[in-house]
């Protein structure tokens, strides 16, 4: 019997598992996709009603619930699509140009 779980193949210098099985999960978070952004969402926390609609619609899943129950985008990953600003029922989010 071959112990498939522990067999490693070598391609060049890289060791890979059989079937290219990845044992880590959620490792794409190593890449901070926030660098793709040209517009940045700015939330007016005074206006935010904590409904979570931005959170439910964000394609990145990068909107974070704060301790006070309000929502804000994690700018490490936000690609600046603007869905949250467009869908916010109380218009608490505005998109502003990213400046270096």
């Amino acid at each position: 019997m071959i112990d498939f779980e522990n067999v490693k193949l070598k391609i060049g210098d890289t060791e890979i598992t059989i079937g290219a099985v990845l044992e880590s999960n959620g490792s794409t978070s190593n890449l901070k996709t926030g660098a793709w952004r040209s517009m940045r969402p700015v939330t007016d926390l005074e206006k935010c009603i904590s409904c979570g609609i931005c959170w439910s619609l964000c394609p990145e899943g990068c909107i974070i619930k704060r301790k006070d129950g309000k929502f804000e985008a994690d700018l490490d990953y936000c690609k600046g699509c603007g869905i949250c600003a467009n869908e916010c029922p109380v218009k608490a989010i505005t998109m502003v140009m990213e400046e270096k």
Partner: protein
Amino acid sequence: MAIAGLPEEEYLSCGHRACAGCGAATAIRLITKAAGKNSILVESTGCIEVISTPYPETAWKLPWIHGAFENPSSIASGISAALKAKGIEDEINVVAFGGDGSTYDIGLGHISGAFERGDNFTYICYDNEAYMNTGIQRSGATPYGASTTTSPAGRESIGKVEWKKDIIHILAAHKSPYLASASIGYPTDAFKKIRKAIETKGPTFVNLFATCPTGWRSDPAKSIELAKLAVETGVVPLYEIINGKHVVGMPRDISKLKPVEEYLKVQGRYRHLFRPEKKEMEINFIQERVKENLALLLEYAETGH
């Protein structure tokens, strides 16, 4: 804990490589939330496969298997058979999903086979209406009049000249116990339909309409607005077929439909219908056919079909 009617747990990690404003990425967040942690996911080749697994990284926090373009339904069949043999088929959800290219065209035979065998799994199609990952080629799901790289609009062409394939009724002919049409514009509705599909025993199907700003040449910020507009204009009616009986969710009143023009004119793939001159005939044709389709669905629902 639930936020906006959805579970708080996140099974798709940040840092995936989807375009800004990707409707399919929102769709996948909904699918994984509905499936929950006791799930095995199977996926075909497509946008979501490419954006979620840039080897050796993965965005998934659930067991996820990538098949070929055509066979996630066959893999799901195998998994469901294995779970049955182990006597744990009620504890683990098997969810297969693919884009419209894999579902409507390349994998249709395999899906048909799995539905005919009556295997216990749910198939979800995130439908963005063309082969987006390979560069916007037309698929069986591309709607009439849309310009793609293989159905380009020009002086002699109005884009794709065939109507979109009616996948739900193709699968309804397989006597599946639950089929539904959903849109990411209505996330809680979509979530409930996917839950229902997973909870129903046997092969079930949900067509989840998802915007693609890259392929549709639309504003990324309007991805959700467009998915809502598609429903409000009747282009994508939301309905279920439960044990062969139609239930139409929305829209339910043909006289109150928004004109399809509102939906068409905000998308670059339909730009040729408005420029250089407005092509009334084509727009009317789409409008009439949309009304006809909805009337048929409402009639089915009324007569208990």
